[in-house]
């Protein structure tokens, strides 16, 4: 069965060093845990650039276009009424809604995009099985290696973590 190896470190810098080290040694399925974002954690884990900005941009542009087109279709094309002698297609007055709809769609897609990328909500996760791990969100700095199969590898990892300065190391099984 696959297990997760978790190690707690005293300081964020120790954590980051350890992660860096393990990655160099070829461990890919690493992750760090900290109560607040750590500068350099992304680099330590070697993560690619996030897609979220692209999502936001695309959604924003399409939202704005949609907003303008709706106004134009309804007020200038489908039923162009004589409203106070103003031209049916009065572009300047369409700007505010165009902008707002752009922002709205962009924000929504960033919000939901984030949860999709992070696969959240996910109230259960193997790491939560470890009682000590509760410190991770308030004070502790943890490092995890994902579902390790071979017993030998587990042994080796536990030792390696200790040697990298982990205060404590635990093994939690994956449940389905």
């Amino acid at each position, binding site marked *: 069965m696959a297990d997760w190896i978790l190690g707690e470190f005293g300081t964020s810098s120790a954590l980051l060093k350890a992660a860096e080290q393990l990655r160099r040694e070829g461990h890919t399925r690493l992750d760090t845990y900290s109560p607040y974002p750590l500068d350099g954690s992304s680099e330590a884990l070697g993560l690619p650039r996030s897609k979220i900005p692209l999502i936001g941009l695309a959604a924003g542009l399409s939202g704005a276009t949609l907003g303008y087109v709706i106004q134009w279709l309804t007020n200038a094309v489908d039923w162009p*009424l*004589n*409203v*106070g*002698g*103003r*031209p049916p297609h009065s572009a300047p007055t369409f700007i505010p809604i165009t902008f707002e709809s752009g922002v709205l769609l962009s924000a929504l897609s960033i919000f939901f995009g984030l949860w999709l990328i992070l696969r959240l909500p996910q109230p259960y996760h193997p790491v939560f099985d470890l009682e000590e791990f509760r410190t991770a969100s308030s004070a502790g700095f943890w490092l995890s290696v994902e579902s390790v199969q071979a017993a030998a590898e587990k042994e080796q990892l536990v030792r390696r973590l200790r040697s990298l300065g982990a205060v404590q190391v635990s093994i939690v099984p994956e449940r389905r």
Partner: protein
Amino acid sequence: MKSPSDRVDEAGVDRAVEREFPMGAAETADGMDRRTFVQLLGTSLALSGLAGCPRAPPEKILPYTRQPPDLTPGNPLHYATAFATGAYATGVLATSWEGRPTKIEGNPLHPSSRGAAGLFEQASILQLYDPQRARLVKYKGVARAWKSFLAETRQRLDYLLEANRAAGLRFLLDPSGSPTVEDLRRRIAAAFPNARFHAYEALDRDNAYQGARLAFGRPLETLNEFENADVILSLDADFLQCVGPHLRHSRQFAARRAPGPAMNRLYAVESMLSVTGTMADHRLRLRSSEIQSFALELLSELVGKHRLGALAAIASALGQPLDAGPRAAWVRAVAADLARHPGRSSLVVGPRQPALVHAIGHAINSALGNFEQTVRFTRPVPLEAEAGSAALAALAAEIRDGRVDTLVITSRNPAYTAPANLEFPSLLSSIPNVIYHGWYEDETWARSAWTIPAAHPLETWSDARAHDGTISIAQPLIAPLFNGIPELELLASFVGEVDKNAYQILRESWQKKTPAADFEQRWERWLADGLVPGTAFSPERPSVRWDALNAAIRGAGKQDDAAPPGQRPLEVNFVGDYKVYDGRFANNAWLQELPDPITKLAWDNAALLSPATAQRLGLGQGEVVTLELRGRRVDAPVFMVPGHADDAVTLPLGYGRSGMEGVARGMGFNAYLLRHASAPWFDSGLTITSRGKHHPLAVTHDHWSMEGRPLALQSTLAEFQKNPGALDELRGPTETFHRPVDYDQAPHRWAMAIDLSRCTGCSACVVACQSENNIPVVGREQVRRSREMHWLRIDRYFSGPIEEPSVITQPVACVHCELAPCEYVCPVNATVHSDEGLNEMVYNRCVGTRYCSNNCPYKVRRFNYLHYTQDKPAPEKLMMNPDVTVRARGVMEKCTYCVQRIERVRIQSRIENRPIRDGELQTACQQACPAEAITFGSLHDQSSRVSRLHRDPRRYDLLHDLGTRPRTAYLVRIKNPNPELA
């Protein structure tokens, strides 16, 4: 689409009879009552479900069983009839939808209407449906059958006849010229030789008739033909609004206001600022008591300087020479002007002035050779020439002596309108058998033994005479809604004709008069035309009895007291009210809510005085004071009116009612309580003491000044001709970012023109609009909160010195801007433009943001802050114009240029495949206007009256610099002052 039959709802009226509640919008107290709670539930339902969901239970359609032949469901019919206020009748056309009268308009064929309709004629439609009208024949408060009244009265009369040949039988009638009433009276007199007839109305014309008697030796009716008059001098005569055939007067007067050589000139001398006063080219404010000496001064001036031969006869009578001062200059100028226009001038004297002033007026007119030119005479229209307090005093004396056993009253509520010193109410109570034929359970009703509900003019057959004697046959449009009894039937019952209805009585008396074979055809024609041709009185040609006049003048002492302004004792003036007349219209919510043409007061009257006098007495606007005169007291709020004579107070009559009429009760104060039979019109020695309270008056327009803004413009003939281009910056195209919308393709280009030179501010248009467009009445409390709903309002501005202000009135309704500021701010397209340039208001799309009203620079939009139409009693629902949506709570509304009329005429013309003719289409306001100040039509038609007026040099646009491009154009008011007085 509403089927006609929807509204033919027999149950409706009965329901109204069952549940009585105040007409018009009730006072709305804050807080949550039961109805509010139900509404809340309803609201929440509307919120939850889809509003306007048609799953309601099916509507009923009730077709006729036998459809009247000339009736097409869905198309209105018009009937000619007549409506009399006082002795004079005005011919009107009543609109009827499947038997429901909904609107009253003028009869173009009638001499005193000429197609125009006044406030009272139009508003009377509301009184027809007034659920508070008297409903039951009662004896001492107990409901009785009409039959039993007839029987018991018969018995009593027989008894009286035996006892003393009915010496105790008296009639107190409303003055009228009805030939049929005349017949009946003759026959009653024959049956009861000792019976006596009296006539009384609070706003009598005794002075005029006595003046004629003094000048000519017999009472005569004075007819003014203003179309022939170049110079008019009005001595306390409000001939454009109240006196005589004012509709006719207005039209004739307005016809001569077009700038140019033919323009007339009006001098007005009066105490309280009147509608006529606002139109005057020169106005002299004098206390009513000073006007007689003014007349004498004028007379002496004409005699002395202008040597009018005829007047020399009384030269000896005129002692006092004309002293110096502004007033003297005035007199000289006027005298000179009159003398310059012999036969083309006219001197009008108001009924409030004593007989002598009238006589002097006749003398001057005759000396100026105005007889047969601008002034004509006929025999009096009413059967009794004297119908005022004198007449009533005579009757009162008889009652006091116990010589009256049975008094039949058809006069309007004498217990209320009688001068206080007669103590008429208690006298009435002392009479064994009073029979009162009245509209309401009013003050008189409460003191009468037999009380009989009167039928409304639209409910009964009758006939009446116009100012010149022309007879109209008044026909009913609907059966009496509240069991009203026609006056004719009541009178006929005294000569035993108990089984005949008014129609038979009327027809028979006419058949006797016209034995012609073709009576039937004639009768039909009379009904169709609304008048009987050739029944105008033949002209009288009286001549002035100089000696008598001579004596009278010698007898008359100098009236003014020498004391300088400020120390003189306060003079009190009693005037008929513009809105409720003598009080007979006090229960008419339309008239109560109508802002007074001068004061802009609604729902109340007040003690009117000049700002200077108010200052002297240390009184503020709306301060409650106690007025005391000859030991009688009444409390009233004071109201300052610029241009009112100093040291004088004017009290409009007709308010402070204590009868059973829910609308009238509690509104204003009762000025009759101060009125004395010996001085019914003005009196001296009034004392005022403040009560230290303040009464919140409902004023719709309390700002006097125009703040130097070019809104309601007036100029003089001279100035205008000097510089005709002065208006160019107030008209013509304005800069705009937008390519102007092209209206050339549209079939019409609707527009309106309002000529301020013609508009007198009489407000007939406001009532016409209210009647045509189902405009709700909101009640005094709502008007105080300035939520009145009138689509058309009349602005009134004062300019110049506050003592001698120049006044201008300006009707303002939606001006239908081509670049309408209200439209582009509406978030839901509820107000947009039609291809013909109408600013359309779509009630059913409106969500009620009120943004349009905020952004309307003319503030002509009206918002239904509460459900004003909801509390309408059922009978009033019958009065609604089915062509106009009745607006619900929370939606905006405004003038539509009477689009319902436009569409009706359009559809008719399209069916007949012809264009709409100019003049075929009239808006309600235009139709009612006696001065023809309002014109409506299409600008596409270059020859149409409206496009000519839009090209008029006097044309300008209201708030032109805002670039809204209004479709309603205004024409500057031009005045024609006398250079000598400049």
